[in-house]
C-alpha cells in the first residue's frame, strides 16, 4: 500500500531550507555563483542608495 505524505509536507520545505534555491545554485558554475552573490550585493547597495535619496517633493 502506498502511503502519501500530507500535502503540507510536500509543498513546504523544513524551516530554513529551500531546496529550489540550493538546486539552482548548484546548477551554476563557481564563477556564476560569485556573480549571483555580487549581483545581490549590488542590488542591495542600489536599494540603500535609493532609500537614502530624498523623496521627490520632500526636502
Amino acid at each position: 500500500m502506498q502511503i502519501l505524505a500530507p500535502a503540507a509536507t510536500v509543498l513546504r520545505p523544513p524551516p530554513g531550507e529551500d531546496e529550489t534555491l540550493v538546486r539552482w545554485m548548484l546548477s551554476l558554475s563557481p564563477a556564476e555563483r560569485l556573480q549571483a552573490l555580487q549581483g545581490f550585493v549590488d542590488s542591495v547597495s542600489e536599494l540603500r542608495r535609493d532609500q537614502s535619496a530624498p523623496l521627490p517633493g520632500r526636502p
Partner: protein
Amino acid sequence: MINPPRFRDALEVFARHDVELIVVGGVAAVLGGAPMATFDLDVVHARTADNLERLGRALAELDARYRDPAGRLLRPAAADLAGPGHHLLLTRCGPVDVLGAIGRGRRYEDLLDDAATIELGGLSVRVLGLAALIRTKEEAGRDKDRAVLDLLRQALRASTPDRGE
C-alpha cells in the same frame, strides 16, 4: 564610508601579489553552492614571512584599514598578521576579514587538504570545501555560525547525492 563589496576585484589583487590564502566564510559557502548572502570576504592566509610580505603589499594596494568604531585610521601591521587573530578590515573592495586561524585554531596549513582550487573566469582561487566549512563553523559555535549551518548542510547533501543518504 564603507565601499560596497567587489569580491572578484579583491581576489584579483590578492592573486596578483601571489598571496597564499584560502577563501572561507560566506563567499566560500556561495562558491560551494549554498544560496546565502554575505557582505565581506573572509580569507585565511599562510603566515610565513614571505607570504606576510606579499599580503602586506596586497593590503596596501587595497587601502586596507581596520574597521575601527572610533573612526581611527589603523593599518594592519605585518607583525600582527603573523598571529592567529582575526583582522576585520575595510578596503576599497569592501570589507575583508583576514584570519590567522578559524574554528578550533585551524591555520592555513591545516585547511589546505580540505580546500580546492577553482577557476573564476581566468582567476584561480583556493576555496575551503563545504564539509570543512561546516566543521569550522560548528567549532566556532557562535550564533552567526550556527544560523547558517542548516543551509550549508543542505547544500552539502545536495552536492553529494551519491553518499547513500
